[in-house]
């Protein structure tokens, strides 16, 4: 295969760049974080209550940047709204459907945040001054209802919205998987398991991100003592559970494909053992899947001390965040490297300073974190007195 290496002349370079690698990554973090909040709000998992609100703001901070890499990638970003105004529902195009699902999910998430924070913001508004007061006025839609009846209604509405949000968040990310999984032209993408793998890996990255940032923020603000051991433990177990299925489906996809051994598989195998060898086998599978899997098993099943959880938890979360990023790379770039000529590999070497290069990618991955910091100035991230009043 390697000596022949012929690719069609239009396919020599991968067309979808790092931008399309981080787009499903960012979407995944959104979907995963939302699942944590839904577990608290809909299924009343008590241990997750302390991070229920944080999960929503965390999801929002990433949600705002879902379209950034996409718009940066478009050849004509000024026409981006064509996706909403002339969506191709005849094809139907999966990508145009994503536009609507993303919009619906954005509205739902923002509305849910407004509902859940309504009472708290109304209280904060009273003591706020200047710009902050204006912001609070806008976010509470100019209302000042402090009654208990109003707060009870809020939690009922929030429950319904979170319940609607679960399938919506799942379809948001399942859809991203569908965008890849439905393309018969690329052997490496064309599998019904793709949406499932994307959804599960999304949950993994979201939960891992939550653990990392929960402990990280508390540590940086010097309030590590406030971190609840039980919350971390439950999140670690949740992470493990999702990762078991995520890794399982990744392996099932791979092994069924390999066992089938079609002509297409030979091309896939050559790529996995060739240009993708390091990023797939070494990083995604060995270092960032098997190792975290074992660590998570240990953390979940045995009695470990609080300090072990607080140190190993963020490390293993970071590893899984990296695993998902490598997985996105191996899917998006890998699929394009397996050229359609079926006789060779395309190339992709991202530059540091180009329009869709490494620097821009880093900026886009850091931007949600900065946004989270800004949002934390407006929305109190953690469970407050008034939340506890309502639940007890």
């Amino acid at each position, binding site marked *: 295969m390697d000596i*022949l290496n*012929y*690719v*069609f*002349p*239009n*396919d020599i370079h991968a*067309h*979808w760049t790092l931008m399309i690698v981080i787009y499903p990554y960012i979407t995944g973090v959104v979907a995963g974080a939302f699942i944590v909040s839904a577990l608290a709000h809909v299924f009343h998992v008590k241990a997750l209550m302390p991070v229920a609100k944080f999960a929503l703001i965390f999801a929002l901070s990433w949600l705002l940047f879902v379209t950034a890499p*996409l718009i940066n*990638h*478009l*050849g*004509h*970003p000024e*026409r*981006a709204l*064509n*996706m909403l105004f*002339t*969506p*191709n529902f*005849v*094809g*139907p*195009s*999966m*990508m*145009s459907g*994503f*536009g609507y699902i993303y919009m619906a999910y954005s509205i739902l998430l923002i509305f849910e945040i407004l509902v859940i924070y309504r009472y708290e913001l109304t209280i904060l508004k009273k003591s706020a001054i200047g710009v902050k007061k204006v912001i609070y006025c806008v976010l509470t839609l100019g209302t000042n209802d402090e009654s208990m009846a109003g707060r009870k209604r809020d939690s009922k509405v929030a429950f319904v919205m979170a319940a609607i949000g679960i399938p919506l968040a799942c379809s948001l990310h399942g859809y991203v998987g569908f*965008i890849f999984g439905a*393309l*018969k*032209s*690329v052997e490496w993408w064309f599998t019904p398991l793709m949406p499932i793998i994307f959804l599960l890996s999304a949950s993994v990255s979201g939960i891992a991100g939550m653990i990392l940032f929960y402990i990280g923020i508390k540590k940086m603000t010097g309030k590590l003592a406030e971190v609840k051991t039980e919350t971390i433990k439950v999140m670690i177990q949740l992470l493990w559970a999702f990762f078991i299925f995520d890794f399982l489906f990744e392996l099932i996809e791979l092994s069924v494909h390999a066992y089938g051994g079609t002509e297409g598989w030979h091309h896939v195998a050559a790529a996995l053992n060739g240009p993708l060898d390091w990023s797939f086998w070494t990083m995604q599978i060995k270092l960032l899947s098997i190792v975290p899997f074992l660590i998570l098993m240990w953390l979940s099943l045995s009695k470990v001390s609080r300090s072990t959880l607080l140190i190993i938890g963020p490390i293993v979360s970071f590893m899984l965040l990296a695993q998902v990023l490598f997985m996105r790379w191996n899917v998006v770039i890998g*699929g*394009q490297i397996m*050229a*359609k*000529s*079926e*006789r060779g590999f395309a190339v992709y070497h991202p530059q540091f300073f180009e329009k869709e290069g490494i620097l821009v990618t880093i900026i886009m991955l850091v931007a949600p974190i900065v946004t989270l910091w800004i949002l934390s100035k407006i929305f109190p991230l953690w469970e407050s007195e008034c939340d506890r009043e309502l639940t007890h």
Partner: protein
Amino acid sequence: MKIDQNFIDKDRRGFIEKVVKGSIAGSLMLMIPMNSKLFAKVAGDDSKLVSLIDPKDKAKHYAFMVDVTGCIGCGSCCVADRKENSVPQGQYRTWVERYVIDIYNTVYVDSPEGGEKGYSKPRTDIKEKIKDAFFVPKLCNMCEEPSCVQVCPVAATFKSPDGFVLVDNSHCVACGYCVQACPYGVRFINNDTKTADKCTWCYHRISKGKLPACVNACPTGARKFGDLNDPKSEVAKIYNSKTVLKVLKKSLGNEPALFYVGAHEEVI
């Protein structure tokens, strides 16, 4: 025998003499401006032709055929295509691949610069004895079930009622989904317009009753274009004959309207 040899030798000299004289006559013909008085009145100005096509006309069933056994790999089609459609350098609406198969059945394929410069030099990197070699021109397959049309999020690429897959470059957002979806690699994001682009079988020429630029340029008639519903057309005659036709990546179910005559199994 000796006499014969002499005769041939003498004849060869005469041959060359005449050739040289003849060639001078030929060259002179080139140097005299041909019918220069006629320059004032040119009847058919090709740039001023008007489209006669009715997009709703479904009576025609256009098909493209490539006779692999006839292609000499001169690259004229690619040159014509680039100029006809202002295709940027390094991007290809059509290209010609060279297949070489050695006695161990190893298939070597190359297409330097899309074959545009013509294959006037043989491949030198093949050590084994060659058992077969041929050229395969590639272009849009104009699928009955086009993947690109299915995936376009803004319906900028579509199939016209008369069967042509076109790209509305004033509506395209250049997301590149069609580039990924096309199994044949014929799509690209045009570096000049920043929109998706691909071969249209020269819809603008067909609409004016002309053949596609590449078909017009092909010196051996290896590229054929016509209406399958017209029994007199060359493509219909081939289509209705015993000739074995091949479409690319048949298993994908795109049902191309681009057929290959004499193409090997190895052609992808």
